[in-house]
């Protein structure tokens, strides 16, 4: 099989294991491409892609843009701060206006869960979800699991713990789906206030003690504490103070040295050094944080290449 079963990439939930394998094998080819002296291939030269970022992002946006440019696509960028959205235009209107300028594919980040799925039902174009609120962030999960597979050979049967703010994290949900589809066991770990209710329905283990979680796992994915989502509009505090969070859930080198095994440390970035993870751990040989970033471009190239191949020529 050499094409995806889906027309859009809205979430990992819609993908089959074959889809994920196809994306990985294609990403492997693109990883070789981006290590060439000339890192550009002409595949998408007749495709125009709009990057619509209704929420701030540095690395995802950069990574998508690089992936698009290395495939020779034409790229237009849009950030909500400087746009008509602040004048009250609806999402469908904004996107349709952009599409009238003959755009073939839309990469969108949006603060509302389901925004990408909503758009895919109402607008006639191919959509790639680059994060929709607290719902999914599929390309991040794909690059995480791809990086793991590169490091460990195979993820099937491996035990992965996701630590931190599970409640607000789209990375966590996408990772859970993706890891499970590839046959890994998943545990989430964090303070009770940051673990969503009923999460065990997804077949994940729940643990509130970081040391115990580390003893169980082969891989620890340390999520960023989303400071901008703490407190917030309703002024709800999810933990008493950052210092207390760090004491309970911050990963330090002595904790890793206590274990009688090597575990892999991941982080989707951006890192709050000294909060969820210390600098020593982030820069240690356990960590594959920079590999994740490199693989991000290859994974996004693979996703765009595979989706673009299904777009009809007119």
């Amino acid at each position, binding site marked *: 099989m050499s*094409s995806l079963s889906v027309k859009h990439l809205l979430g990992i939930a819609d993908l089959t294991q074959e889809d994920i394998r196809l994306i990985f094998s294609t990403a492997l*080819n693109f990883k070789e491409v981006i290590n*060439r002296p000339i890192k550009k*291939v*002409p595949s998408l030269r007749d495709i125009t892609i709009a990057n619509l970022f209704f929420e701030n992002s540095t690395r995802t946006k950069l990574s998508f843009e690089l992936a698009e440019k290395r495939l020779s696509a034409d790229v237009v960028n849009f950030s909500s701060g400087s746009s008509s959205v602040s004048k009250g235009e609806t999402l469908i209107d904004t996107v349709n206006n952009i599409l009238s300028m003959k755009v073939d594919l839309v990469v969108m980040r949006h603060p509302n869960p389901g925004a990408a799925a909503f758009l895919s039902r109402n607008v006639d174009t191919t959509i790639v979800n680059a994060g929709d609120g607290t719902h999914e962030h599929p390309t991040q999960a794909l690059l995480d699991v791809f990086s793991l597979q590169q490091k460990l050979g195979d993820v099937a049967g491996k035990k992965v713990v996701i630590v931190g703010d599970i409640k607000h994290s789209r990375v966590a949900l996408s990772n859970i789906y993706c890891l499970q589809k590839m046959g890994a066991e998943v545990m989430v770990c964090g303070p009770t206030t940051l673990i969503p209710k009923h999460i065990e329905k997804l077949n994940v283990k729940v643990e509130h003690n970081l040391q115990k979680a580390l003893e169980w796992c082969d891989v620890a994915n340390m999520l960023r504490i989303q400071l901008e989502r703490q407190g917030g509009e309703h002024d709800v505090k999810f933990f008493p103070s950052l210092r207390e969070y760090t004491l309970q859930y911050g990963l330090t080198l002595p904790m890793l040295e206590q274990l009688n095994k090597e575990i892999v440390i991941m982080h989707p970035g951006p890192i709050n050094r000294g909060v969820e993870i210390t600098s020593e751990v982030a820069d240690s040989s356990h960590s594959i944080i920079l590999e994740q970033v490199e693989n991000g471009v290859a994974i996004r190239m693979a996703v765009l*290449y595979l989706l*673009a191949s299904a777009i009809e020529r007119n």
Partner: protein
Amino acid sequence: MKPVTLIDKNQLELIINRLAYQLIENHDEFADAVLLGLQPRGVVLAERIKYRLKQIMPEAEIHLGSLDITFFRDDFRRRDEPLKANSTEIDFIIEDKKVILIDDVLYTGRTIRAGLDAMLSYGRPSGVELLVLVDRRFSRELPIEPTYIGKSVDSIDSQRVKVDFAKNTSNDRVLLFNTELADE
């Protein structure tokens, strides 16, 4: 209809032998020439040629790479399914080298066009030559001609030429099919 055998195992051995000597005639000991096979079957052919070259000149150091052209093709989105890519492995510098591109069958010339583009991502060679096992004459869509030819054949569009490289070389052959044969 039964396929016609264009080249059998013995003929193939002779052809590879001749191509190897032709290459030596032009490039001596391959001091500044490298072989680059196009994935997938051009690579197998290139390996066979390199093996023969090493038999003739055991001392020579011959570089052989494989090049995948999938992302450089001009028929992206013109096919029903995207093509699966193969790996590219070039662990030497092609800058200022004479590159000998190697493929099994030359037909429309589009694969070679894509191959030239793909190769240029790795640097600027001082010259490029093309070696093919089978040249399907009079069917070119681009102005591309081979430097070394295993065998020239006249064929029509509905025919397919298929190169079968067997694992142990005993069943190597090149076939001409008259019916439509699905592209692999």
